[in-house]
């Protein structure tokens, strides 16, 4: 209740004084959905540099990464963002899963330990973002509890959300399924890796702020 009131007052004051010069844009989602790939694409487009390393091995991002002063233009508008890339949220982390990616036991255990801390950190950061891009892998089932928990928590905090159905370049991609799962939110299909629909993505982001 207090959080909601605080969020409402913040929004009201910011609107009143048009104070929000920098928007904290968070990237949330399950592991391997393409959060860092999308954050990298944005940073490459507007800063000419990457944000972090992306990998096919889950939990590559295990710490919050922040890129400040990313000025994005869409049409005639220009906004200043702090981009916050978060570790993928999961309910389970089994070090044995990393062994399948040719890691040693020590490496796998270390990665698992860091990943658990990353998930905790990502959840804590929910209170520090203004707008959230929920990045989902459009080839996966969107009804996973992690997705529903993330979106439920954003709704409870009254944070504007854009759902990105990533990896639309893949044949197994089912954007309609993502749209059906979250009918109350805007959904945009993109391929962060190939840069497909990125202009449309920027337009959707500007609609949220």
């Amino acid at each position, binding site marked *: 209740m207090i959080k909601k009131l605080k969020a409402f007052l913040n929004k009201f004051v910011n609107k009143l004084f048009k104070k929000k010069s920098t928007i904290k844009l968070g990237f949330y989602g399950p592991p391997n959905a393409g959060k860092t790939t999308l954050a990298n694409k944005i940073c490459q487009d507007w800063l000419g540099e990457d944000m972090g390393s992306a990998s096919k091995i889950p939990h590559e991002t295990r710490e919050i990464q922040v890129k400040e002063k990313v000025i994005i233009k869409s049409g005639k508008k220009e906004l200043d963002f702090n981009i916050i890339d978060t570790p993928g949220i999961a309910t*389970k982390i089994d070090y044995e899963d990393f062994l399948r990616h040719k890691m040693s036991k020590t490496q796998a255990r270390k990665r698992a330990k860091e990943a658990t801390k990353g998930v905790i950190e990502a959840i804590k950061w929910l209170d520090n973002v203004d707008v959230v891009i929920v990045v989902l892998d459009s080839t996966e089932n969107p009804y996973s509890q992690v997705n529903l928990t993330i979106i439920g928590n954003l709704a409870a905090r009254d944070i504007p959300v854009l759902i990105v159905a990533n990896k639309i370049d893949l044949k197994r991609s089912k954007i309609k399924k993502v749209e059906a*799962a979250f009918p109350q939110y805007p959904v945009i299909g993109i391929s962060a890796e190939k840069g497909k629909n990125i202009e449309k993505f920027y337009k959707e982001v500007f609609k949220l702020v």
Partner: protein
Amino acid sequence: MSYREHANLLTEEKLKRILKITKQNKIILMQGRLKAHEEAELIEKTMSQITRDFAGISFCVINPQQNGKQQVPFSTKLKNSIYNMTLGKRDFLTIIGPATIVREIRKNPTKIDLLINQSKRRK
């Protein structure tokens, strides 16, 4: 776990009980659902307790009243909202299990598949 059994518990107690049961390799069928912040806290607490033997949890919330693409009449929606407001969200069913046993819970969205791991013991 009936609704009455957990509804009046503090979040801390509720989550402690859930994790205690799942760590005993048991699957919980809970009447009702956790609040959004409780679900997030459950994930946080689970992460802080992960060890070699406890890899986390799988959980899923289903609403048996939900009929997929079928349109729910307004009167039913209203009746359910009043029911939920006065008696709590008892219609929901939450399934929580240890990840070492419950490999995956697939929700699709009107049915669920509970995929169980075959005996997995670690040395």
